[in-house]
Structures are given as structure tokens and as C-alpha cells.
């Protein structure tokens, strides 16, 4: 069953930028965790997840994002969400993600 989730990654210095597209669910969450794990060996200290093209997220997807936060915390890294849909931003707030991660309006703002 296609969920049509796409993940594009880009490395800028010590920052990993992930751009998601589609339903951020089990499949999407796993891809994000896997990609972050791949790059943790490369001394990244910041991960930016851009959700501009993801308008729907479920709690399974969120649980994987929490895993990413924990992974980064172990490595003294930081997670920043960008271009959040207002509904998703509200969801993240309720789920407590912003206690451990940040948000920014854009990737450029997150990089600066």
C-alpha cells in the first residue's frame, strides 16, 4: 500500500537537512530515523526537518521523531523543524516535541 512518502537529504557542514513529502507515518518515520542514524557518524550537530510538503502526520510518525530527538540528545545535537503546517505545529506542541526540539519559519532561518 503506497504511502507516497519521499525524503530528500542534504548535508551542509555539520547540519543534516531532511525535506519530507507526504504522509509522515510509520514508513516516513522509519526513513527519517534511518537517515539520521546514517549521518550520526559524520559528526553532525544539527538536524533540520523541513515539513513544508507534509501536511499530515500520525502519532507513529511522531514517535519516530521523538527517537530522532533522543538520538541527537545523546550526541549533544539539536533538532529544528521548519515550515510547519499550523495543524502539525499544534500537534507537535501538544505532544511535547518543542520541549526538546525547536522550530523555525524556514531552512535558512534554521541554518543561521
Amino acid at each position: 500500500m503506497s504511502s507516497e512518502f519521499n525524503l530528500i537529504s542534504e548535508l551542509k557542514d555539520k547540519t543534516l537537512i531532511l525535506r519530507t513529502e507526504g504522509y509522515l507515518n510509520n514508513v516516513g518515520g522509519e526513513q527519517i530515523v534511518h537517515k539520521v542514524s546514517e549521518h550520526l557518524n559524520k559528526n553532525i550537530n544539527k538536524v533540520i526537518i523541513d515539513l513544508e510538503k507534509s501536511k499530515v502526520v500520525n502519532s507513529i510518525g511522531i514517535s519516530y521523531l521523538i527517537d530522532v530527538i533522543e538520538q541527537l540528545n545523546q550526541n549533544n545535537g539539536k533538532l529544528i523543524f521548519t515550515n510547519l503546517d499550523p495543524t502539525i505545529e499544534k500537534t507537535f506542541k501538544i505532544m511535547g516535541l518543542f520541549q526538546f526540539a525547536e522550530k523555525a519559519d524556514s531552512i535558512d532561518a534554521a541554518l543561521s
Partner: protein
Amino acid sequence: MLEQNNLVERLSLQAESFQEGFEILSKASSFRELTLNFAHLLRGNFIIKDLYLLHKAAEDSEWEGVGLDNKFSSSDLSYLSSSNNLNISYYDKQKFCASIVLPLSNLSFLGILLGLKLDGSAFNDFDKITLQILLQIFNSAHKSFLNQKKEKELIFGLNEKIFQLNHLIDTGIELSRFEKRSTLYEMALERISSLTNASAGLIKIEDLDHNPQQYFLFPSGTDLENVLKSELKIQTSFEHRNRIYHFVLSGKETRKGLTSFNELDQLLFEAVTRQVSTAIENEFLLQQSIEKELIEKELNVAALIQQRIIPKELPKIEGYEIAGINIPSKEVGGDYYDYIALNNGKVALVIADVTGKGISAALLVNTLNASLYSYLEFDLPLTEITDRLNKLIYRSSPSDKFITFFMAVLDPESGVLEIVNAGHNPILLLRKDGSLEKIDAGGLGLGMLDLGLPYSGQSLKLETGDNLFLYTDGIPEAMNENEELYSDERMISFLKNNSEKPAGEFINALVTDVRSFVGTAKQSDDITVMILSKK
């Protein structure tokens, strides 16, 4: 004794490092991190190079390596006791110094194979006690880790419930604001999939014969058949205005794969579908309201037009009194009366009643009025005018619409009336001596048939004191709450008893009498009446 004291002293010195070890282990955020940190502790305390950590989830599970360099062989596993209790075995001059099987509080097991110490020595008493302490530290840290995990899961679960509740409320608000129907369905699918962790959702709209008309899928690339055939699905449906809306969700996601939806999911699912149903109904009601407003505007315009046709005031004819009134039962009615001064000094009195009411009846009245004026210009015989009107109305009206029509042309000087009655109720002529004539000669109502059947006319003369009474059936058929009709008899009786009154007063008195009879019952038909009295 001295040896024991030395042991105690050495262990006391180690207390702080044990404490630090526990703190390090307690900070682990995963079982893997916990075991790897423990491996570091073991290596640091015993100065050993090779160390294998294994884990099995349950008594009858297989041992699996934990950590990066776990290249153990099956023969290595033989060192691990098959007992399910705590077992620590020490070896001399073998591959391993010690093997440990540690039961954990969650009924899993940690297996540890300690390789040879770098200095080649065997485990002494101090090492054995240290090992036992470290194992206890690990056990405590593992319990702490499990508690933290449970606490996190609990917090996550509580937050999830809050999220679901908030999301459900927001969904209801958002669905009520949708602008396009397709947006409504897409939003509903996205929201309910997110709420229930569904991997896919479907809305199928079909007619009452179950012919599918539209599908909406989430995510957009989802295979329709997979959703419909899924064994892990929930569905619900509702009917609205000859369409059936089916909602299906399939494949509830968990970290461990797909599972069945639970009762809460079903509740959330049905709540959202009810919100969709309400939104659709509200859209329909809004549309109806807009259409009603448009119709009312059109009716107002039609009423204005019709009011221009109905004479506001009937003119004075020397030697005669004339009065009339039209009270439509709706804003726009189907009754019509008029007074037309002709070029030859004569006067045409017209009364008509269109089948039906409302705007369609009013439009037909307008047609009648316009064409009548036009034909009267040509000084044609009444029967021919009526025939032409019949053909015109027949062509321009639906088959179920026709007009009952009465026209009288008065020569004021002679008092002669030329009359045609096309299907209208008999017009009453009350003579001064109290005798009553009913005038109904003519033909069929206008627009009923066009078979070329000629209309017949009639001629009579008004004398002083005579009253010509024109009316539509809204008078005799006016009904009160007891479903009694005003009736022809009552109307004729009123005419006879009040014919002396001036025309205007007569009309008002008749309307008052009819309204008094009807009481609080709703006016069921237009009321139109005209009286011509020769004085």
C-alpha cells in the same frame, strides 16, 4: 581476617566509582546504550579485551548479540547456562574467565561472556564481588530504564489522547468551513487517518443503486482495491439526498506493523464521519437558503410587475359605480382583473384566474394582460379576441396551465354589455328587482385546448339599479378552520343583502365578511372581486 578487611577497604574505595557507574547507566535512553555502557564498565573494572553481551527476550528465545563487535560462535554460547536463574560461572585456562546469565525484571535475560584479563590472571575474590555489585547496578539501572520508558510511554499516550481530542474538535471546525466539496472529503480523510494512525483511507460515493460515482483516497497513491479488501479495516456509511457515502480506513499502524483498529478508533471515525455528514447537510441547507432568497427576490419582482397590471384605482364612468380588489394568497398570485378604456368610448371589464400560483401564474397573467391590450386595439369582436387569446395562451403555457377568463365590454351610454365567459365561474347579474342571472356562455378556459372550437358571446343590457358582480373562485371556496366553504349561496346572499351599498363599500364589506368567515385559517386562494353598478 586481614584479607577480608582488605577486601572491604578496597570495595569502599570503589563505592564512588560504583555510584558513578550507576549514574552513567541510568542515563541510557535505549537498551543498547545501557548494555554498551555496562560493557565499558566491565572492561574498565576487569581490564579485559574480549567481552560478549547477549540478550534473549524470553526463556525460549534465542540469544542475540548486543553491540558492535559481537562476533561470537555457537560454541561460545555453550558457556551460558541454560538455567533461567542468575548464574555466574568462572573458568580457568579457558576462552572465557566468566559467563553470566542475568534474569531481568521484564522476564528477558542478559548474557555476558567475559574474556581473559589482559594480565592473564583468573578472577579473584575481589573481582567476583565487584562483578556481583556491577550486576546489581546493571539490574537497578535496567529497572530504572524500564520505568523511564513506561513513564515516557504513559506521557506519550496521555499526550496522544489530548492530541486526538484537540484534533477532533479542530476537524469539526475546519470541516464546517470548507469551500469545495472535494476539499471537505480530502480534509476528512487526512484528519481521520491521522487521528487513528490509519495507513490509508477511502471515501466512496454511490447512488442508491450502488453505482459508484466518486472516490477519494488518502494518501493519493493508495490502491483502492487494497483498501477495500483489507482485513484490518473499519467502515461506516450514511445516506444523504439519494447518495450513499462510504468511509473506510485500513491498516492501523504501530511500530511493530499493522494491527486492527480499536474501539476508540471506531468512536473517532464515526465522530468525524458525522461531522462530514453535518457539513454536507449544512451546505445543502445553505444552498436552499440562497435559492429561497433568490426565489423571494424574483417573487418580489414578479409581484411588483403584477401590481402594475392590477389597477390601483378604477376610473369613474358617468352613471355607473365600479370597484374591485385583488388579494393574492401568495406574494404573487394568479388572479387578475382590469378595466380598459377603449378607443370607441366603451369600457372593457376583465377578470381572470390562472391555474396555480406563484411566479409561473404571474408570468401567464402578464402574457394575458399584454396580449389583451394589444388585441383590444383592433376593435375585434370579443369572441375573436377570446379565440386569439386562447391560441396564444395554449402555445405559451405548460399543458397543465390554463386561464379562466371573463370579459365584458360596456357601452356606457346604452348600458349594453357584450360578454364572453371562457371557462370562468358564472358572473352574476343582480337586477334591481332582486332577480339573479348567471352569465356563463362562452367556451373553454384559455389555453385548455386549441381545437378551433369557436367561443360564443352574449349581449345584455344594464338597467338602473342593476349590479354586475365579477369574482374568482377564491370567494366561494374560501375555507375556515372547520373546512367549511364560504359557498356560492353565502356569496349570493351577501350580494342581495348589500347591493344598495356604494360599490367601494360593497367590496370592503364583502372582503370583511369573507375574512370573518375564514377566521384564522390561512388564505388558500387569491380573492378577486369587481362590481359594476348602474345608478
